[in-house]
């Protein structure tokens, strides 16, 4: 592995959060949380392309099918950005402190996990990108990252405490299941669609592999029979962040 550095303006003492690659037009979008903006990098030239303003506390970023969603943790909103024109198409209201996000292109909806505040419980929300469709469900703990399955029928969400994987059907957020994880602090999450395997990075120092596809085939409608396999990756106390799968 070799490494180069790509400069981002106004980055001294800053903080970044999630980033996402959009294959068409091969751009990387990054939440520049401390500067309330969205950074755009051209992945072919490896150059910073643009700084888009107006994303208060930008945190979660996800991309797909030419669209980029940005969860504005400081603004209680989610922005829908065109990956090619870089124009904001719409801004949707969310619950307090939206964080994890997913895009469901086939349903034209956004999934956003809201941390909540003193008066609002943590909540998972599904928001129509057009029209006025909206579904939500209260969560049993602080949400982190979320992903959807290959068929875009099911959403999986990491919950920090109690450490678990939360699953629900899209878009109604029904058929909910909680899968306790064998490591504290479920945090980053990604999914291998081809193998139907979920990976959850936990702050407790483990990467947990979960066979995700079995949940819908569960015969008794309760706990699914699924395989869970932990890998120890760091000592307890490390902070595991969103992870990426190649393959």
């Amino acid at each position, binding site marked *: 592995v070799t490494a180069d550095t*790509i*400069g981002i303006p106004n980055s001294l003492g800053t*903080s*970044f959060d999630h980033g996402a690659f959009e294959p068409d037009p091969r751009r990387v979008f990054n939440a520049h949380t401390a500067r309330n903006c969205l950074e755009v990098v051209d992945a072919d030239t490896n150059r910073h392309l643009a700084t888009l303003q107006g994303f208060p506390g930008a945190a979660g970023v996800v991309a797909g099918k030419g669209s980029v969603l940005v969860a504005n943790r400081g603004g209680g909103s989610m922005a829908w950005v065109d990956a090619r024109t870089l124009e904001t198409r719409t801004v949707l209201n969310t619950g307090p402190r939206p964080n994890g996000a997913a895009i469901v292109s086939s349903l034209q909806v956004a999934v956003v996990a809201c941390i909540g505040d003193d008066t609002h419980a943590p909540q998972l929300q599904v928001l129509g990108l057009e029209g006025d469709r909206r579904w939500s469900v209260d969560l049993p703990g602080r949400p982190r990252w979320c992903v959807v399955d290959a068929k875009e029928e099911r959403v999986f969400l990491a919950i920090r405490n109690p450490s678990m994987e939360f699953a629900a059907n899209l878009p109604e957020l029904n058929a909910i299941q909680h899968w306790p994880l064998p490591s504290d602090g479920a945090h980053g999450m990604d999914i291998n669609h081809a193998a139907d*395997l979920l990976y959850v990075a936990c702050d407790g120092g483990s990467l947990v592999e979960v066979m995700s596809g079995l949940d819908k085939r569960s015969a008794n409608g309760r706990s699914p029979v699924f395989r869970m396999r932990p890998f120890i990756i760091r000592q307890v106390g490390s902070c595991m*962040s969103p992870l990426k799968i190649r393959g």
Partner: protein
Amino acid sequence: VHVAIEDPGLIQTVDPLTGSSTQFITAKGAKTTALVEPDRLYVFSPLQKGVLDLKGA
């Protein structure tokens, strides 16, 4: 599977088939990434004032 670890700042890459893993030192505070197809990993690193582009990831 690439996992960004904020403190002390590294990318740990796990091969689920074998359970083996490798590490690449980044910088403290580098906690998020983006996978750039087919084989590059962008690591967002405040201390490096931008993006660390790992080729061959």
